[in-house]
């Protein structure tokens, strides 16, 4: 609150009357409201996508699946059991789990049209044995090399499939979208600043005669700037408040609908406490930016007058 007078300067009531009271009559508050709403929605999308990308990245970065395709089912089962046991004991592995036959059949059943795992056709398929291995945090490449060596020893011919290989592109796409959203936030911030600059210049043009008279009777640039800065900051604050309320309503609506999505990648998207805090801070930062932009524009313009 200590910085509030710098953003919306205190100006005596009698001085405020130097500018005619035409609050919200111009387009500025409305344009700022639209830009603020779009900025907040883009920021929310960016934060959600970035968090989703990070969640996916965390989930896939440390997991590999070993696919044992040995033809003899008894040998295959022995190799899977041995790999699960030895990998689970390795210091670089947090956990190793053999994917059960029923789990495999259930997954396949979804694709092949069989409702249950007791389909004889499904059971007759020569399915590989799968072992999921989760690494502990650390140097991934070295851990992967050690696992490959272990697999080559326990189950020659088995394939090691890092999840990052097939889910990585999706995570990269989501991360790219998050960057695009971030760029949109930046562009709209610049557009908002441009609107404030134009507003400040238009205000100076409209009230040039008053400014000239104020100069002649000894007003300082600081006095004149405070007068206009206050007016522009308040007008902008109205716009920012309006845009924020509309954006909050849209986010709550989307959030309510999103809460029904519980599967797949969509479930990984959320704003988190830090995200909500950032979104709450954005309108305040926008008001401060508008006031600073107005102040600098006004001071620069006044310096051109003697």
């Amino acid at each position, binding site marked *: 609150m200590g910085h509030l007078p710098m953003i919306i300067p205190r100006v*005596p009531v*009698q*001085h405020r*009357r*130097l500018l*005619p009271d035409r609050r919200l009559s111009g387009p500025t508050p409305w344009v700022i409201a639209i830009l603020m709403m779009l900025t907040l929605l883009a920021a929310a999308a960016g934060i959600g996508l970035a968090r989703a990308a990070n969640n996916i990245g965390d989930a896939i970065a440390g997991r590999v699946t070993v696919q044992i395709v040995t033809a003899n089912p008894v040998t295959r089962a022995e190799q899977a059991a041995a790999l699960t046991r030895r990998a689970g004991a390795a210091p670089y592995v947090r956990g190793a789990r053999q994917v059960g036959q029923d789990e495999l059949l259930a997954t396949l059943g979804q694709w092949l049209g069989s409702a249950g795992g007791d389909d004889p056709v499904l059971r007759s398929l020569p399915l590989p044995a799968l072992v999921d291995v989760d690494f502990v945090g650390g140097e991934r490449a070295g851990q992967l090399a050690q696992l490959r060596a272990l697999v080559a020893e326990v189950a020659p011919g088995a394939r090691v499939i890092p999840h990052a290989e097939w889910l990585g592109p999706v995570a990269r796409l989501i991360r790219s979208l998050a960057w695009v959203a971030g760029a949109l936030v930046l562009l709209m911030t610049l557009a908002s600043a441009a609107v404030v600059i134009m507003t400040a210049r238009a205000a100076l043009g409209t009230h040039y*005669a*008053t400014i*000239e*008279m*104020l*100069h*002649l*009777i*000894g*007003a*300082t*640039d600081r*006095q004149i700037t405070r007068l206009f800065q206050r007016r522009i900051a308040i007008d902008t604050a109205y716009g920012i408040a309006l845009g924020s309320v509309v954006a909050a309503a849209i986010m709550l609506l989307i959030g309510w609908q999103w809460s029904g999505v519980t599967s797949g990648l969509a479930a990984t998207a959320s704003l988190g406490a830090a995200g909500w805090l950032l979104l709450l801070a954005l309108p305040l930062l926008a008001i401060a930016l508008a006031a600073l932009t107005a102040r600098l524009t006004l001071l620069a313009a006044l*310096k051109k007058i*003697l």
Partner: protein
Amino acid sequence: MVEFDRVGLRYGPDAEVLADISFNLQPGSFYFLTGPSGAGKTSLLKMLYLAQRPSRGLVRLFGEDLVSMPRHRLPGFRRRIGVVFQDFRLIPHLSARDNIALPLRIAGVSEEDLAGPVGEMLSWIGLDDRAHAFPPTLSGGEQQRVAIARAVIARPQLLVADEPTGNVDPEMAMRLLGLFEALNRLGTTVVVATHDIHLISRIDNAQMMRLEKGRLADPTGALRYPPANRV
């Protein structure tokens, strides 16, 4: 109080609108600035009330060189100068009272402290009953009186008036001149630019400065070297 020494002024690349202007204004004196239209009267006044810096020459005001003075120091000097314009230049959305109070408010005088002087000023110009009227509802003479009151309320040391009687009838012109004379008797140096030759003859001891084609006619040298400065 005011010293111009070989002052020249040009706007952009054009020829000088004022050339080799030299004079020395004495404290408490009354000056009329005359000359045909386009002679440069308004340009000269602009330099006097610090709305324009000269292109060359020396300008000293209240003992300080204004040519090289940094811009941030100018407001302090402007508060010691009152300006009256032919077109009044009142702020239309402020009442007569608020227009008059403006210089004191800008100088940081509290509302309590300015109430008395503003009331006295309204009485002095005979507009007590129009204190809350807005300029568009005032007659030309009333507006000019408000403009004069605004110019003098902070008790300036120098009062500059650019054709102050140009938009009022002869009777009102004489009343306005009476206000200037009263202020001059209180010690304010007054410079009035006018075309009205009858006005000039009404003030005793007033000196005349005549501009022609951007040059100051001073055949006797009295403006440059006033009697008080002569050894």
